[in-house]
């Protein structure tokens, strides 16, 4: 029997909605129509002013703990995934341990890995449970990546959303669980998805906050998020099929043995292309991005919760979860419900 499984997932979205009409007023209708036809994202959910990623993670955790009547004293591991922490110091997970009233014997730490962080966090929780270090883990994600995007970046602003999630990971009561993980990294692509002035390598100055236009009219400063969309797309369509093939190969399984494929939700164009390339029928996947935007490291648990709510995750089903992005990094797991 697998050492651990997912026993519940909940999520919270930013409460503000930025509609296509609002963006058309800002960037022009033709430009936004082009973005819509490329991304499929019609609306995005943004956190209200003053709300942090940890607030969204907290809301999701409260929903999950209440819904499943979880004894908070039984949680001995809290992993919080974020690239938009409350502070660089202290770690946001420590603040969440206190806010969620988890016991002080609960280990708590952050993972900073953006889009792929959920699968990484699941692998850490699973490994710590398998090693006997923890018994019941709360895996949280929470990001307000919209804060990192320049308001006049017509490529990124229309596709980014904010969300948080909570997942309970513990030993399975009656079978199922994580059957395997496949993780990977290619730091040579770090430059394609980056906030250049966001840490200690390059320090903020009066110049680094000045926004400059790019060749397509988007404005951003060195302190804003930058993404080379084509390079990331190239990375995704190359890496995802190879990783799935490798994971399933290690488990002596074929694509047909997987009941549901759930991916990070960058935009509908990439997802449609991936699904077509992998020859996955629409009934064997789920997409939830058009109305909320790309919610970074929360996108995968959000779509998992949506697939569960839609009845697509049946008991015993094999679900392949895969996320990919900043780093560049990626992670996949095969989970039996």
């Amino acid at each position, binding site marked *: 029997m697998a050492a651990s499984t997912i026993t519940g997932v909940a999520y919270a979205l930013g409460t503000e909605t930025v509609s296509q009409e609002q963006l058309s007023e800002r960037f022009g209708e033709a430009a936004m129509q082009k973005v819509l036809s*490329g991304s499929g994202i019609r609306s995005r959910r943004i956190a209200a002013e003053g709300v942090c990623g940890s607030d969204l993670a907290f809301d999701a955790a409260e929903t999950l703990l209440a819904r499943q009547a979880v004894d908070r004293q039984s949680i001995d591991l809290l992993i919080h995934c974020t690239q938009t922490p409350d502070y660089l110091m202290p770690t946001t997970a420590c603040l969440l341990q206190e806010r969620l009233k988890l016991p002080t014997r609960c280990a708590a730490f952050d993972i900073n890995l953006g889009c792929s962080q959920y699968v990484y966090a699941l692998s850490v929780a699973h490994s710590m449970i398998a090693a006997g270090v923890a018994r019941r883990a709360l895996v949280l994600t929470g990001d307000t990546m919209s804060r990192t995007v320049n308001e006049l970046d017509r490529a990124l602003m229309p596709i980014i959303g904010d969300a948080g999630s909570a997942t309970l990971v513990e030993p399975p009561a009656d079978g199922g669980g994580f059957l395997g993980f496949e993780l990977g990294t290619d730091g040579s*692509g770090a430059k394609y998805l980056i906030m250049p002035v966001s840490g200690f390598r390059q320090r903020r100055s009066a110049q680094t906050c000045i926004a400059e236009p790019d060749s397509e009219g988007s404005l951003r400063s060195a302190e804003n998020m930058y993404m080379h969309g*084509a*390079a990331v797309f*190239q*990375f995704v369509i190359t890496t995802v099929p190879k990783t799935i093939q490798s994971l399933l190969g290690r488990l002596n399984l074929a694509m047909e043995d997987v009941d549901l494929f759930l991916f990070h939700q960058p935009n509908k164009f990439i997802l449609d292309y991936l699904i077509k*390339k992998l020859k996955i029928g629409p009934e064997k996947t789920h997409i939830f991005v058009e109305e909320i935007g790309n919610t970074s490291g929360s996108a995968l648990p959000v779509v998992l919760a949506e697939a569960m709510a839609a009845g697509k995750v049946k008991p015993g089903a094999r679900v392949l979860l895969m996320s990919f992005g900043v780093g560049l990094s990626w992670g996949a797991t095969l989970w039996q419900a």
Partner: protein
Amino acid sequence: MSDLEFLDAFADAIGASPGQVQMTTSLRDLDVWDSVAYLSTIVFLDEKLGIAMSPDDLVNAQTPADILNAVRAAK
């Protein structure tokens, strides 16, 4: 695939008119060369030729010749 066949197929993929694209044409000087043309190039290479350039090769390509060289190197 000959140079001419590649150029015609590439021009069609990015929405350029026939004859607008030569092997040494600077991609950045093409009025159709934008983020969507980039994506169209990736889809063209993947679907029609079964080739995946590395992200670095893709970003560093200055001309159609650079792309074709990467395609031939990948075969």
